[in-house]
């Protein structure tokens, strides 16, 4: 009797899996997340796009299934895996509902994982279990009306110490999850004259007095992912909610931005994979001149290009995620990882634009119709060339690192 227990031989993966460099475990995480997203998140996507609708129950369901807090230890309610696994889940979710995937990453990475990395034990215990279960929705507030690319230098939101509280005044613009968030990581200037070195990070709860959502914004793409302007009008935040030390918020921002850039490239990958699949399906069934349009050389040339683009995105995205996987707490914001993560999202966002352009072209008139799935995907271009640092900022980062003396 041949009898082997848990040391059962590992079945080798497909050529595509080996090319992507995924382990069997990673491939399974991607497949399971894909299955969940296809069945549970895809059916929500049309209404979200049509009505800018927020599905109230979705986060609870995602949390129940264990898809929040992926790199966070189980003691806090997480899955105890890593950033790479988190990126795979995001890729899978983005194939089927990229708007919800955007909300997911704002919650998972910008809020939840930032709290895990930068907060003290008491703050972790207080906020992580709720965020990991999806019962609380998270967001991050950095940018303002006058502070986009120059988010740190031009920041005008202030925090003034008043006894055992800080009093926040100002506003934050284009905040993903803003209208629905329960817990927000907010940056404000504790010392106005000290530039980036005068910024601190705070955990704000939506019921804190003086916090309000000014207006929900209507977007061209990623519709249903809620975006808002937030206002702080003498908003009182307990001093116990200061993240790290006063005036040391800049390191939280910069380290967080590297992870954010590594973590949003999978959105571009997931959307592009789905667009290519839709284009292939369409070209196989759409008949003109008596044959499927997939039989025409000009359409076939597009597919060859799109395949190469998507696979290049995959490798760049995965390699940048692997490099960011082991970023030490407080690390990043400079050096190679800063350059690599900026390059990853710059390439992914730019390439996704090319893939979607061809995908809609293959769909012809039917792709220009608002309700078409490929049209919804097409309207997702641009955001990721703008958010988490514009392409222009990314180029500054990359060239600065290359030319640093």
């Amino acid at each position, binding site marked *: *009797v*041949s*009898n*082997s*227990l*848990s040391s*059962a*031989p590992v*079945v080798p993966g*497909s050529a595509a899996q080996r090319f992507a460099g995924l382990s069997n*475990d990673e491939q*399974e*995480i991607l*497949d*399971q997340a894909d*299955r*969940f997203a*296809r069945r*549970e998140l895809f059916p929500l996507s049309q209404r979200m796009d049509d009505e800018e609708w927020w599905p109230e129950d979705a986060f609870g369901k995602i949390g*129940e*299934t*264990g*898809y929040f807090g*992926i790199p966070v230890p*189980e003691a806090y309610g997480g*899955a*105890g*895996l890593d950033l790479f*696994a988190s990126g795979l*889940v995001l890729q899978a979710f983005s194939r089927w509902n990229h708007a919800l995937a955007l909300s997911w990453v704002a919650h998972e990475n910008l809020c939840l994982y930032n709290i895990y990395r930068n907060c003290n034990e008491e703050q972790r215990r207080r906020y992580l279990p709720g965020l990991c279960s999806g019962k609380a929705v998270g967001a991050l507030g950095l940018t303002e009306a006058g502070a986009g690319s120059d988010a740190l230098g031009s920041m005008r939101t202030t925090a003034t110490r008043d006894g055992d509280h800080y009093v926040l005044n100002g506003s934050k613009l284009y905040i993903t999850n803003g209208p629905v968030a329960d817990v927000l990581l907010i940056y404000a200037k504790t010392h106005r004259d000290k530039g980036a070195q005068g910024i601190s990070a705070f955990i704000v709860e939506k019921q804190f007095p003086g916090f309000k959502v000014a207006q929900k914004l209507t977007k061209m793409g990623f519709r249903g992912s809620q975006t808002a302007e937030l206002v702080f009008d003498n908003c009182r935040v307990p001093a116990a909610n200061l993240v790290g030390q006063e005036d040391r918020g800049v390191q939280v921002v910069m380290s967080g931005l590297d992870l954010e850039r590594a973590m949003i490239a999978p959105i571009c990958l997931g959307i592009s994979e789905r667009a290519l699949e839709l284009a292939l399906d369409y070209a196989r069934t759409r008949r003109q001149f008596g044959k499927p349009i997939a039989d025409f050389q000009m359409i076939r040339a597009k597919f060859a290009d799109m395949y190469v683009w998507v696979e290049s995105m995959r490798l760049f995205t995965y390699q940048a995620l692997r490099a960011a996987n082991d970023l030490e707490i407080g690390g990043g914001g400079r050096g190679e990882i800063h350059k690599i993560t900026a390059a990853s999202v710059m390439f992914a966002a730019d390439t996704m634009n090319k893939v979607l352009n061809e995908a809609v072209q293959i769909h012809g008139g039917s792709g220009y119709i608002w309700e078409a799935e490929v049209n919804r995907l097409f309207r997702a271009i641009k955001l990721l060339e703008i958010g988490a640092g514009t392409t222009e900022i990314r180029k500054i980062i990359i060239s600065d690192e290359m030319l640093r003396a």
Partner: protein
Amino acid sequence: MKVMVSVKRVVDFTVKVRVKADGTGVDTANVKMSMNPFDEIAVEEAVRFKERGIATEIVVVSCGPPQCQETLRAAMAIGADRGVLVETCGELEPLAVAKLLKALFDKEQPRLVILGKQAIDDDCNQTGQMLAALATLPQATFASKVEMADGFALVTREVDGGSETLKVRLPAIITTDLRLNEPRYPSLPNIMKAKKKPLEILKAADLGVDVAPRLKILKVSEPPQRRNGVKVPDVASLIAKLKNEAKVI
């Protein structure tokens, strides 16, 4: 109570199935495979028994190529405790699977065996019934509800006129219908933990079972393409077409 569940690795339900060019079967190269959905319901039911304290151990078994390990791991991620793979190569017919399961039943001595009523690849709907016959055990097929009562299982099954409830003495064989339950999604931590659960690998010969096919497949072909319908102006021309073209009246 020990429960044995059998699972089959099949072409995923989302895949557009293509027949091989030479007509010998269905193309499974580079095709996404997953657990037969009816078997997933069987695993879920067993896990619910365990959560209610009725089952103490769930053994999940599969017969087929080494890749079936993935299917067993998926079942263990849902909540099965350990896995047994009977490794075989080549086509497996329902009778061969039933004989292997009979051998595993004798080895494991479970009080209950749960199987999917059929697999979505060949739609045979035979294995559970054959197993019951080989093991001379009571069977309750197409279960839409299962309750346990002191040495018996009460199994509700859908029949043409409504539903009927069978009372079967344990040990027994139950096959699952779609409405029995809605299987959960395994959580990420459970997927990872499933990798560490024990998985035993046997060969068909170890169990003394001859799995050689008894049937010969002559040809597999695509179903004929459905032709576009036509609109008829009135009843008279409809009847004329039914008489002269379709020749059904």
